[in-house]
């Protein structure tokens, strides 16, 4: 069977179906509605950041002991989501899973924009954000270098690398489709835009050969990169000597959680685009089914992480760690712990049934619940640890302020704006790879017939 349903009219039709979305967007009214909303949120971003920079971090709810707050937990959340794209396209590319072709393009785009949001958070959360570049190693008048033993410096390099690699991987992947957009473009403006973006790609066999070498190599390197990046993010916590953070479970626990939340978001986007742009025969029930299976698998692994964490604490029975555990289960922020457990793993169980997996609406809702659940988890891991650490004398609750929330809304705005622009102006599915897959399937069939 073919992954993309056989398209009447072959290659040309596929090209048209995908590329024409970018050239002549079908349902503009709906797009503008969404974009309007996105711009509103974006406005909230700019207002929040202005207030933040004007008055200082004090406008947030942070305090001592909870010196980090929503900013950092959201950073981890966004970055986690940002892991699915690369995972899907890189890993499945290497495994020659052709069904990936219908998903990888927008999954990668999603990754990019999520990482952008994630990257912005630690930046604005600084006490003196205008000096953020001091974390970068460069010869300076103070002749001081960054402190390379700090998890924050590790993160700085990890996120930067991840962002660069994701952009490049996504861009060289989209060039051939941009070329076909260039060739189909009728308006001068779009011709120039795509003409420049296509770098003069003309599908030469020699070019394809080298392109393939580079593309596959990048994919091969990207997979361990993804793992390393979120492991490092987890060290941001695990490297601190604070009960509830110092745990060797964290790196794998975080990576799985990241993939988990990422796949959830990919599924949501896939379902929405599929309906909004009528891509039913490119994003087929089989794709939903496979996504759901991935979601279920990573979800169960994450659940194991939860269990392992609790078990470790009970097994060690260390007074402080126990305190933190009990507090998570029953303290002021128990809602975040149980919220995470329930939202992450309860609806997830429905995915054992194929009927649910291929039912777009249900899958969407489950994915949504997972996305929220993972947000709870990040919040729980950060706040429950800090607001009650070693000395009872410094215990104090943390409540995000209005400006915490408005910035969060703003960040979602940044993400939506970027993503909507991508949907509107670029080929959101890798048309040439769909065609390639089609060709190779045909080849196989003919061999089969004799």
């Amino acid at each position: 069977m073919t992954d993309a349903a056989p398209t009447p009219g072959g290659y040309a039709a596929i090209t048209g179906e995908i590329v024409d979305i970018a050239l002549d967007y079908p349902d503009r009214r709906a797009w503008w509605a969404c974009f309007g909303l996105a711009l509103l949120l974006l406005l909230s971003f700019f207002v929040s950041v202005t207030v933040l920079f004007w008055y200082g971090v004090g406008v947030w709810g942070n305090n001592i002991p909870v010196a980090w707050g929503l900013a950092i937990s959201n950073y981890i959340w966004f970055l986690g989501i940002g892991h699915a794209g690369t995972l899907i396209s890189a890993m499945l590319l290497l495994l020659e899973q052709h069904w990936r072709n219908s998903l990888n393009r927008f999954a990668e785009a999603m990754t990019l924009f999520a990482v952008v949001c994630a990257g912005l958070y630690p930046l604005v959360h600084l006490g003196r954000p205008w000096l953020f570049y001091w974390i970068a190693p460069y010869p300076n008048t103070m002749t001081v270098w960054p402190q390379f033993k700090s998890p924050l410096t590790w993160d700085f390099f990890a996120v930067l690398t991840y962002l660069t690699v994701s952009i490049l991987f996504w861009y060289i992947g989209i060039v051939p489709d941009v070329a076909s957009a260039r060739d189909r473009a009728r308006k001068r403006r779009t011709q120039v835009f795509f003409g420049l973006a296509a770098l003069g790609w003309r599908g030469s066999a020699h070019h394809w050969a080298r392109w393939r070498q580079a593309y596959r190599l990048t994919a091969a390197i990207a997979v361990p990169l993804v793992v390393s990046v979120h492991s490092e993010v987890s060290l941001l916590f695990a490297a601190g000597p604070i009960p509830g953070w110092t745990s060797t479970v964290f790196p794998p626990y975080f990576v799985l959680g990241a993939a988990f939340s990422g796949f959830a978001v990919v599924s949501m986007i896939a379902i929405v685009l599929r309906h909004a742009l009528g891509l039913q025969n490119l994003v087929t029930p089989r794709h939903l089914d496979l996504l759901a299976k991935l979601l279920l698998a990573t979800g169960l692994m994450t659940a194991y992480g939860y269990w392992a964490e609790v078990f470790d604490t009970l097994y060690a029975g260390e007074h402080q760690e126990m305190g933190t555990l009990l507090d998570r289960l029953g303290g002021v922020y128990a809602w975040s712990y149980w919220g995470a457990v329930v939202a992450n793993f309860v609806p997830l169980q429905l995915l054992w049934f194929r009927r649910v997996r291929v039912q777009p609406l249900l899958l969407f809702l489950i994915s949504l619940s997972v996305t929220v659940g993972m947000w709870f988890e990040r919040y729980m891991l950060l706040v429950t640890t800090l607001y009650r650490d070693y000395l009872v004398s410094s215990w104090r609750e943390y409540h995000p302020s209005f400006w915490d929330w408005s910035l969060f809304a703003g960040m979602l705005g940044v993400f939506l704006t970027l993503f909507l622009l991508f949907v509107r102006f670029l080929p959101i599915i890798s048309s040439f790879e769909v065609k390639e897959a089609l060709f190779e399937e045909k080849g196989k069939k003919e061999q089969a017939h004799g």
Partner: protein
Amino acid sequence: MDMDREARTPPHIDRRSLLRAMAASLALASAAGRRARADERALPYVNAPEFVVPGKPKWYATAVGFSGCAQPVLGKTYVGRPVKLEGNADHPLTGGATDVFMQAALLGLYDPARSQAPQLLGQAATWAAFDAAVAGRRLTLEARQGEGLRLLTGAVSSPTLLRQISDLLRRWPKARWHVSEPLSDANRQQAAQTVFGRRLDQLLRLDEANVVVSLDDDFLGAGPRQAPYAHRWSKRRLAWQQGQGASQLHVAESSLTTTGSMADHRLTVSPSRIGLLVAAIAQELGVGPAPAAPLAPTERTWTKQVMEALRASHGSSVVTVGAAHAPDVHAVALLINERLGAHGNTLTFIDPITSVPAPDDENSVAALAGDMNAGRVSTLVMLEVNPAYATPAGLAFRQALEKVEFTLHAGLYVDETARLSHWHVPLQHDLESWTDACSVDGTVCLTQPLIRPFYDVRSLHAVLDRWAGDTRSDHDLVRATWRHAWGSDFDDRWRDSLVRGFVADSAPTPVLPTIANRNVSIKAPTAGALMIDIRPDPTIWDGRFANNAWLQETPKPISKVTWGNVVVVSPRLAAERRISRGDELRLEANGRSITGAAWIAPGQDDKTLTVTLGYGADRTGPLPHGLGYDAFALCNDAGSWVLDGARLGTTGKHLVVASTQLHQEMDGFDFVRRVDRADRPVKKHPEAASFYPERKWDSPSWGMSVDLDLCIGCNACMVACMAENNVPVVGKELVEQGRQMHWLRVDHYFEGDANEPSSSFQPVPCMHCEQAPCEMGCPVNATVHSHDGLNLQVYNRCVGTRTCASYCPYKVRRFNWFENTGDDPEQLRAMRNPDVTVRSRGVMEKCTYCVQRISAARIASQIAGHPIRDGDVVTACQQACPTQAIVFGDVTDRASAVSRRKASPRDYSLLEEANTRPRTTYLARVRADRRPS
């Protein structure tokens, strides 16, 4: 007045309650412009060069006044700007001990909210106009021998002021002098009057007392005697730790105090029962009849143990009763002490250092109010008092003021009284005046100015001198007093006294009075309904320090509440009435009522509500508004601080209480550890192995040891730290949000039974961990380790990731959430310690072990060409501590004081399990040792 409007604006996003409001005042900014000038007639403490060396501090010995008594201090000045006050180690009484009020006096000097010009009916006026008015007034008075003239002052021990007053009264026999000192020793003096036939001051020789029995007397708590008493008590405690004698403290009190926290044996009891306990002890010793009512079982066991202790230590024990209790209770206590052989040994008597004007004695204010209402007062001169606020509501002093045809208020602030007076004139702060006063042991302290007045203000002496028809300066007046007293050798003694800060051997020799009257007995307690126990506030006293932001932001020792006062209720009562922390309570007694926030604390008597003075939502003047309640509003007449038959209700409202420590139960942890005897080793956790090789530290390498067995939680170290290190004040809103900036905090913990808890204090500065997690976390090398073992914070390198704070197991790091210093008024900038960087917004800060003092010592020793000696570096907190609980020094030097402390078996480090290898370690508290040797 625009300051009020400012102060009343609703809390703003980056609003710091007090200082910002002050900054807004135009008058201040302009007044502050003037250059600081030293008074060249003042003599430096150590022989400094005649000329001023910028950057090189000069020290002056002087004193600051507190309720009539002198608190000896050394003032550190840079080019004529006082920047820090420290205890005067040479002073026979305090030996360098300080308290919060002494430390915070510096801010009192620079307070931008101080009154800066005379006012007539609230309108700015000139001194010339004032002088004219006084001259006019004098004509009529002269004619009627001063009839109708009343002088109202606080307690006075200043020989010069007393001389001026008596001169005035001699000149105008019909004039009268009244004293308004809400919290005085009047009851004790009355008791002396009854028993000895003469008024006497009592002084506890706690350094001599193996056994101290305190009946509701918080002698280690805030007050004029705190520093000397804490100092003396710690001497005994230290000796006992070395195995000499005993140091037992038995306390019966209604609400947990610092004294109660140090008690080996504490009893929670209603104030109404104190008399009974005293009577019971008296009976046991055969100096009094049986108590008027039977004792409760707990009271009996407590008394039994007290008696054992007392009998076992004749001549080295003392019984002391709280000043708030009735004279007859004190009288019986005097008899007990006589029988204990305390008189002259552990309890000494001197003639009162503050004189109370006859004939009304402690009813002075009541009498004055009476005369005012009766229209017998035509001219009222109020010097450095605030009777419109700090007098019992029963006297209705405000209304009485309206009946006086000429009222003058002279003070540092435009306070309640100033607003209700015809004239207000601004006075000089002690640190810019020439005056004299006695410390509580009677030693005369000469007060010389650290700086010329930078506002258009006058000395108290000068103002009074105008009424004598003269215009002498404070300097001349004080010199006149002593020239007369010393005669020929005036010049030498004057110079000598100025250099020392006190007149050598001027303390009166203690008297050993004979008992004239043994026929004293204690009235039966009124039936134990709900009681209200009114106490001075531990940080703003009777409200006179309400304007001092340092003191406002200093947490109350037990509750850790800042910027307001609370109503303390016991856990059981709270459970009964379904009261939770912060609920607004309505208290009613003798027909008056107040509403305040509830605070639930262990060790509180179930039938007693403890309230403190000094606050009040409707207080006027330049102080932060809307804070707490006014306990004076409950009082009928002066001196009665325990109100019976109180009624308690809730208004249903919930109030914001800004406490720096919300959780005070130790929850089974061992942050504060205890040992049974001073020589027993404390329980330690095995130190975890380190992944990295041990580092060899070369000398000097700094460390600190804090003896929890000596710490009385008085907060002197905290305020000293704020002054030394330019620590900003953030205000109530931010404290409530957990954003206070104190580099050194004093944690307070309860353990055990809610009714009879064991309570302890733990000062927590930066631990300067050898394996500091904060350093590991910082991505920009803003917090790093120094060669001499300090954990440094590099402000200009900090970008504010706050990782260090997140990683710090002790949470000692403080973050500048807003711009805390940029908009300080000029006065506060002038007050800053030039050796310490002022931190800007978005930067992390924390205790540096007073690194500026370390480098000063290093420079000095290099110039002198010898290594830094032990004791060359004294941190601000160490210097301020009245009990020598804090010791600092080189830990690599076996012989250093700190090394000797750390060698003690009681030495342990906080949170060993975090494996941070702290340089600040603690000495465990020693449990009660009931066998006095």
